[in-house]
Structure formats: structure tokens, C-alpha cells
């Protein structure tokens, strides 16, 4: 057994608060071999991060206590280690860790150079000069441009992706044997995420470092991990080698998870199967399978017996007690044809431009530049249609949504709603139109007024627009809305904070539906939710559209989510639509190099498909919207960029099937618009 570099045995961690104890991790065991990459997958609250923190002794105590178990690192038990000095030497030098939010994980008042050098000096007994040299070498290794100059910069002078590179340099600078990446790329954009993960993989392979990837993203582990542990409710429910796990998932939860996650290579027939219910609160020590309450495939044994990991295949263990699980992906019986009236344009956006002036000084403002958030965007949304608007953060997609919602006044362009131009309508007149055009927000926590009950929130549009006559009709309508979104109308008097994230998002949807709008703009409606809950909301939105014939403008950064719900998709980059087309055409034959980069960056939760994929990588970081490159704005990152791309902005090329793209590569082929 001693060949494992790290072996965690039956570790349990509790948080002992004044009034109750949370049993966050219960008897978790895993091991890691030299040079191996393992993935620990789970949703928020599954205990995956706490497990890693416990292993390293980084649990904040009080209230956290590692109640039992052992952590053997090269044969030495870290939990029972009395020698504090030894522990400090292992941490940072032998086992390093990087965290989710790089911007706040670096000390804001120390230069990044100082912070890396600090680690080196602490562990390697080098002189200041040598330590600095080493720090710069590692900054170069993680591909920080002008490392020597940037050494003296502070964290706030870097982008999020660059900060995470610094974190990696800091973690790797003492050549650790193990690197733990705790949701290290979750806060980053997909293309940045792909760059960082590729770089991380190269570094660990080169130095033979063992890597633990802790994430909620099944695609990432499918692509990078050799073995996978699936965690739920503070326990490991299944573990196997990556190929085996995805080929033969053997725990009801793993299957449920795979069934609820949208994939980039999905067919339209595939049905997303949400996992209903909410994760356990873990205020009691679990006596049976933690997934019992939400499981659709539970058997009689599950109720009484404790679920213990048992072998179900070669190196494959699962704690599921159901011997004959159904592991197939679900498809719809028959594809319901959506009714889209292509002749009826609900929303028309023409040459929309939005500039934000950049000011300096607080008392006397001086304009020093312009941020071009949106630079000439045109599209239409038809009755009953869903148009997906996709792009990375800062591409201007939310600005477009805000302009349509009359929350921002566009610099240029026209917005027409139901045939009426609304661009310059004063707020007072537009307010009457608001009942026809609604918005669903990204964050279900901050978008509900904490001082209102959820009944009042849902009923507010009715009151504001005077849509019901009399108290009785009002109450009936609110009840109807609650039923429509699948929430018990009895809950009406609850406060928002008493609900789960998914329930709150339902309230947000009900509020948007209350005034029977023609168009709903969904601004990243699922990105703040856990994957198993995402599917619930997606399905709800889809079924509501079918019943009520609403049009959606679906704004998102995740192409796999958009694929499922959209009829047509527009891809934005730095304030422009670079490609717009039918969902099938866009996914199966993407034209613009940026669309292809974006698609390649999203990992698919299937290792076999992943290995077979062809990838296109983008170069460098996304430029800031304050200094947009000349010509085609993607040329700084495009592998096909030519002289023409640098100088001249590409025109829109439209193909016969309506697929349009702005790229010089296709200029000769289609007809000009």
C-alpha cells in the first residue's frame, strides 16, 4: 500500500456551531499515486473542498474539527502529526493548493513577486536574489508576459486569469509532489479556463506532480483526470477510472448527474432529467445513503441499510444498493415541433451601439476615453422563438439585454418592440410596455427584495400595472402562477431567504410571467445554480414556452446550455455578433474561428468523445473593452489572422440558409448583406 503518495482513510469533519453541528464529511477515503491526476466531483455542499482542506489541516478551527480518520502522506499521518514544524514544511513545499477565486486569494497589499518569493524563502533556504530569480522563472513558466516587469505589480493590476497563473506559479515554485486545484477555474471564462487547465496539465506532466482536481464540472474531469471520485452529501458514492466511470456509471447519483447535464454534442431529442429535491443539510450523521431522499431508483434495501462502497468492477466501487440501475440517457418519445411564427417579429434590434465614457477624477470629471461595450449589433426575435446570445464576460451581451430593457440608453441604433420603435421612448411611456417585456435575472439571491414575501414579489406586476380587478382575482392569479412554476401556493407568505436557490429562481420566473409578457429576456438564468437544479429550470422554461407561446432572448456564456433551449444562436465577441445561425448549423459546422475556439474550450463529460475531439486554441487573453483591437477584433487571438484582418473590419457574410458570419475567411463565398 505504501506506493500511494497520499492516502486518506476514513476522514470525518464536523463543524460544531453553537446550536447545531454540521457533519460535512463522513468517512471519506481516497488515494493518489505519484504522477497521477484524480478528479473529485460533486455539487456545492458535497464536502469535496472540505475534504481537501481537512487533509491539509486547513480547516478553520473552531468551529471545524477533523473528528476521525488519518491522512498518510508518504507514510506519515498528517492528522495526528504533533510536530507543527513538519506540517508547515509539507504544506506549500510538498503539497500545494490553489483556490477558486484568484483575485481575493492573493494578498492585496503585497506585490505578486513578494508573495511568490515568500513561499520560496520559506521552504528552500535560498538567498533573496536566487529566490527572486526562481520566482521570475516560474512566472515565465505559467506564461506571464514580461515576467521581470510584472514581478513588482500588485494583484489588482492583473486580470482574473493572470491572478490564477500567479497562484499556480506560487504553488509550483517549490516543486511540490502534490498539487490540489480546488475549483481553480470555476470563476474564469471558458477560453481562459481551457488555457489554464492545459497549462496546468503540461506542468504536472513535465514535473511528474500528482494533481487533485476538485470541481463540479463533469467535463473537466472527463478530459483531465485518470481516476474520479464522485462525492455527495459528505461521502464518496462512487469511484472508478475515468473511462470506466463514464462508460458504466454505477451509482444512482452519478447517473442522475450525467442525465441532468446538457452536453455540447447532445441531440435535440435528449431530455434533461433534473434531480428533484435539495441536497441533505447534514445536520445529522447520515445513517443511510445520503441520496435516498432524491433518488428515483431506490430499492427496499436503501431504506434500512447503510450504504458502503463495494466493488462493482475492476477498480470500480460504488455505494449504491440497487443492483440493476438504468444508466441510459433519456430521450423524448417524440420531438414536439415548436410553433414559431417567422413572419411575426417581436423584437428587432438594429445597429445597436453602446459606448461608456471613461472618466478620471471624482470632483471634476475628465473624459479620458471610451469603452465600446456594444459596437453595432443587429438581430430579430420572432414569436415563439428562442434566440441564444452567447459570449464570454465583457462581450457586451448583458449590455444588449439592458438596452432592450430600457435600463440603459443606447448611444446609437434602433430597438423596435412589437413593431413600435421604443429606443427614445421616455421612461414614463415605456413603463406601460414593461408588462409585455420581462427579465429573468442571473442571481436568484439578490434579485428578490428580502423585505417582501414571495407572494408579494410574484403579485407585484399585477398590482403595479393594475392587471387584476379586485382582491379575489389577484389571489387567484397568484395561486395560478405558483402552480404554473411548480411551487406550492401555500408557501406564499415565506420570505425569499427561506427558499433554496432553485425555488427562488422559480419565483423570479413567476414574477416575469405574471403580466403575461410577449418576450422574456433570460439573463444567465441558470449559471448561478447547481447542475442538477439547472435542468429543472431549463425544462420549466421550455415547457412554459410551449404552453404560452412566449419568445425568449436567452443570454448565456455556456454554449452547452444554450444549445438545448435555443432555435437560433448569436455569438458575441467584444461587442459584436461574429456569427449567427440555426443551432444545428452553428454547432455542427461553426464558421468563425472564435465560435470554434469557444466550442473547443468546453469539455464534454465523456472521455471517449473528449479524446477524439479536434481542438482550436485561442492565443492570449481577451483584450479590454477600452482598447479594442483594430480591424477584426479577434485578430490578436486568431490563429488564421492575416494582414487584412489587422487592418480591415470584416463585413457580414450571409449564406443561403441564413447563417451569417463576420470573417474575412468567408468573404468570397456567401453573398454580402
Amino acid at each position, binding site marked *: 500500500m505504501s506506493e500511494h503518495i497520499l492516502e486518506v482513510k476514513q476522514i470525518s469533519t464536523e463543524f460544531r456551531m453553537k446550536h447545531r453541528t454540521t457533519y460535512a464529511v463522513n468517512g471519506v477515503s481516497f488515494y493518489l499515486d505519484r504522477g497521477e491526476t484524480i478528479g473529485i466531483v460533486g455539487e456545492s455542499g458535497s464536502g469535496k473542498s472540505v475534504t481537501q482542506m481537512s487533509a*491539509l489541516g*486547513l480547516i*478553520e478551527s*473552531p468551529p471545524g474539527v477533523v473528528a476521525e480518520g488519518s491522512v498518510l502522506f508518504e507514510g506519515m499521518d498528517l492528522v495526528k502529526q504533533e510536530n*507543527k514544524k513538519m*506540517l*508547515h*514544511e*509539507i*504544506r*506549500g*513545499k510538498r503539497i*500545494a*493548493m490553489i*483556490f477558486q*477565486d484568484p483575485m*481575493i*486569494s*492573493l*494578498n*492585496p*497589499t*503585497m*506585490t505578486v513577486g513578494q508573495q511568490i518569493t*515568500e*513561499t520560496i524563502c*520559506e*521552504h528552500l533556504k535560498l538567498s533573496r536574489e536566487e529566490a527572486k530569480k526562481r520566482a521570475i522563472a516560474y512566472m515565465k513558466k505559467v506564461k506571464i508576459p514580461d515576467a521581470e516587469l510584472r514581478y513588482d505589480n*500588485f494583484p*489588482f*493590476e492583473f486580470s482574473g486569469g493572470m491572478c490564477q497563473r500567479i*497562484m499556480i506559479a*506560487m504553488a509550483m515554485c517549490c516543486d511540490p509532489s502534490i498539487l490540489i486545484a480546488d475549483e481553480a477555474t470555476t470563476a474564469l471564462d471558458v477560453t481562459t479556463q481551457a488555457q489554464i487547465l492545459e497549462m496546468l496539465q503540461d506542468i504536472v506532466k513535465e514535473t511528474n506532480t500528482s494533481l487533485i482536481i476538485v470541481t463540479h464540472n463533469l467535463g473537466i474531469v472527463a478530459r483531465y483526470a485518470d481516476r474520479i471520485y464522485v462525492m455527495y452529501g459528505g461521502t464518496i458514492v462512487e469511484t472508478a477510472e475515468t473511462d470506466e466511470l463514464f462508460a458504466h456509471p454505477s451509482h444512482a447519483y452519478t447517473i442522475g448527474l450525467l442525465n441532468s447535464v446538457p452536453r455540447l454534442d447532445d441531440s435535440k431529442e435528449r431530455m434533461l432529467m433534473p434531480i428533484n429535491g435539495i441536497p441533505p443539510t447534514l445536520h445529522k450523521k447520515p445513517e443511510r445513503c445520503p441520496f435516498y431522499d432524491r433518488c428515483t431508483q431506490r430499492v427496499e434495501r436503501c431504506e434500512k441499510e447503510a450504504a458502503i462502497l463495494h466493488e462493482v468492477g475492476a477498480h470500480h466501487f460504488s455505494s449504491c444498493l440497487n443492483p440493476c440501475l438504468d444508466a441510459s440517457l433519456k430521450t423524448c418519445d417524440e420531438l414536439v415541433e415548436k410553433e414559431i411564427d417567422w413572419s411575426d417579429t417581436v423584437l428587432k434590434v438594429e445597429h445597436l451601439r453602446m459606448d461608456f465614457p471613461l*472618466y*478620471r*477624477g*471624482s*470632483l471634476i470629471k475628465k473624459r479620458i476615453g471610451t469603452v465600446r461595450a456594444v459596437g453595432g449589433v443587429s438581430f430579430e426575435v420572432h414569436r415563439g422563438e428562442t434566440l441564444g446570445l452567447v459570449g464570454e464576460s465583457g462581450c457586451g451581451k448583458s449590455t444588449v439585454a439592458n438596452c432592450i430593457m430600457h435600463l440603459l440608453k443606447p448611444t446609437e441604433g434602433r430597438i423596435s418592440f412589437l413593431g413600435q420603435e421604443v429606443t427614445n421612448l421616455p421612461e414614463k411611456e415605456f413603463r406601460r410596455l414593461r408588462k409585455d417585456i420581462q427579465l429573468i435575472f442571473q442571481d436568484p439571491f439578490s434579485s428578490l427584495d428580502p423585505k417582501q414575501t414571495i407572494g408579494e414579489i410574484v403579485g407585484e406586476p399585477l398590482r403595479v400595472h393594475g392587471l387584476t380587478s379586485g382582491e379575489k382575482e389577484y389571489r387567484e392569479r397568484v395561486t395560478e402562477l405558483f402552480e404554473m412554476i411548480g411551487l406550492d401556493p401555500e408557501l406564499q407568505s415565506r420570505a425569499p431567504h427561506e427558499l433554496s436557490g432553485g425555488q427562488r429562481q422559480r419565483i423570479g420566473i413567476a414574477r416575469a410571467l405574471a403580466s403575461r409578457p410577449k418576450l422574456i429576456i433570460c439573463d444567465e438564468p441558470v449559471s448561478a445554480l447547481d447542475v442538477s437544479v439547472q435542468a429543472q429550470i431549463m425544462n420549466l422554461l421550455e415547457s412554459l414556452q410551449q404552453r404560452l407561446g412566449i419568445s425568449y432572448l436567452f443570454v448565456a456564456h455556456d454554449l452547452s446550455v444554450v444549445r438545448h433551449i435555443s432555435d437560433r444562436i448569436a455569438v458575441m465577441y467584444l461587442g459584436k455578433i461574429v456569427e449567427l445561425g440555426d443551432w444545428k448549423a452553428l454547432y455542427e459546422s461553426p464558421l468563425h474561428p472564435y465560435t470554434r475556439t469557444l466550442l473547443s474550450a468546453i469539455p464534454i463529460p465523456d472521455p471517449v468523445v473528449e479524446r477524439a475531439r479536434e481542438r482550436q486554441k485561442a492565443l492570449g487573453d481577451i483584450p479590454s473593452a477600452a482598447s479594442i483591437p483594430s480591424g477584426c477584433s479577434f485578430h490578436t487571438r486568431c490563429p488564421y489572422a492575416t494582414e487584412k484582418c489587422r487592418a480591415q473590419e470584416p463585413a457580414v457574410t450571409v449564406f443561403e440558409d441564413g447563417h451569417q458570419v463576420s470573417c474575412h475567411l468567408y468573404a468570397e463565398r456567401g453573398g454580402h448583406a
Partner: protein
Amino acid sequence: MIKYVGKKVLVSILILLLVSFMAYWIISVLPGDAALIALGTEATQERVEELRAEWKLDEPLVNRYGAWLVNIVHGDFGYSTHYKAPCLEILKERMPITALLGAISLAIGVVLGILLGILAAVKRGRAVDTIVTFLANLGVSLPVFWVGILLIYLLAVWLKLLPVQGYASPAEGIGEFLRYACLPCISMAWGSMATVCRQTRSAVLETLHQHYVKTARAKGLTERKIMFRHILKNSLIPVITLLGFQVRNLVGGSVVVEQIYNIPGMGRTLIQAVDSRDTNMVLACLMLIAVITILSSLLVDIAYGIVDPRIRRGGSEA
């Protein structure tokens, strides 16, 4: 950084002008006819007219304010009717006493306050924390004048260790000076110490939960190094802001303490000036206090800029 400092200086001057106008208006216009007040009700009409003309009371407010301001800038604070001497001379004599006692109190209050605050935060939840927190709570609840009287009772009346009242300048011997200065300084420092201690404790506790502290721990630094390199520097930045307030509170405290201990400083001068309706002296004292507090908050702002790299490097603070 230069821009930042320049802007702060400009704003400070603006506020000083605003304050001086407010003070001038309240003190010399609001009470009514200064000449009548100075001469009393039994003065003859001609004498009043004469004085009005001499003091230029018939001119518009702005002109009078302007003339007064010009005089002040030239160091002329007017003649004190109570002390029968130019205000500047009196203040030159008394200001250093207040400044010296205030500086000592500030040093004691801030240094001890920060140290105790850190101690309580590090030993949070233990007995030391409970005791320090309780004392700090008591500290912010006890009025300065009562602490002064209590100290007089305990150390001077009861134990007879120190003199009850009075003041000896350092020129008369350091030992003598300390014997007299001891109680007033403790009375003044007590409140600042408590406030600084409470704020430091909560600032450190807040920093303890920051993500970069977790990073520092994962780097394998010892708790000592984490505390000194990462936590303290970041948590003391907000405490700096508090220093400006402390100077202001100490000025208020000095008024009370000088009265109790019979110390001939600026605070006592102000009270006597108010009692004897010595308008010029009151204004002179107020302006001096305004300069002190505004200057101290300017220094605090600049110090903040030096410590916080976001201001030092960025220059813009939007």
C-alpha cells in the same frame, strides 16, 4: 499619488474655509450687536456708534468675514477682551501645553489600543479576550470627566500619590511634569484606547477570514508569519482611518480634562473665553481646533494612500 495628495489638500482647504465661515457667522453675527454687548446696556448712543464704526460692524457680512480672514492669515487673531492681550500671544503660551498632553495621550491610546486589540483578536474566545473586550466596552461608556474625577479620588485624595490639580511644564523638571501630567493623560487616553482596541479587534477578526489568509496557510507559513506579514498589515489599514477621529475626540477631551485638572491649556482658555464672551478669543480657539482636526484627517488620508497600493499605484479612486 501626487494627484491624489493634491486633491486631498485642495478639499481640505475648501473645508477649512467653509468651517471658518460657519464659525465666524455663528460666533460674531448670531448673538447680535457686538458693540452693544461689549459696552453693556447703559452705554451712550454715541459710544456705541463709535465702537460700531471702529469694528466696522455696519459693513456687509462677507466684507467683515473677508477682513477677518485676511487678518488671521497674517497672524492677527484680534485682541482678547478677557486676557487683555492679543489672542495670538495667549495661545502661543497655552497651545503647546495642550499639544504636548494631547500627543502623549494619543500615543498611549493608539499604541495600547492596537496592541490590546490584536491581543484580544489573537486570543479570541479565551479569557484574555473577554477581559479586554469588557474593559474596552467600559472604556467607551465612561465619560472623560468622570474618569478624571475618579482618578483624582483614587490616586490623589485617597492614596495621596499624585497632586490633585495643576500643571508643571517640562522645563521645571521631567519628574515634576510627569507627576502632574500623569492623571490628565490617562483620563484622555482611556477613551481612545478603548475605541481603537474595539476597532482593531474587529478589523483583525475580519481579516482572519479573508481568502488570502487561507492561501498563506496553504503556503506553509507559520501562524506567526501569517499574523505579521498578511493579517496585521491588511487589518491596520482601516484602523488608520480612525486616527483622525481620535485626534478630534482628544481635542474635545482636553477641554474637559484641562478644566478638571486646572491646566492652563487651550481647552481651558476656550471655556473661559466662552464664559466671559470674549468673541475674538473664542474664534481664535475654534480656528486653531479646526486647523488641527482638518490637518490630522488630511495626514490620515495621505497615510492611507501610502499604505494602500491601490491608491498609490492607481491614482484614481472611483
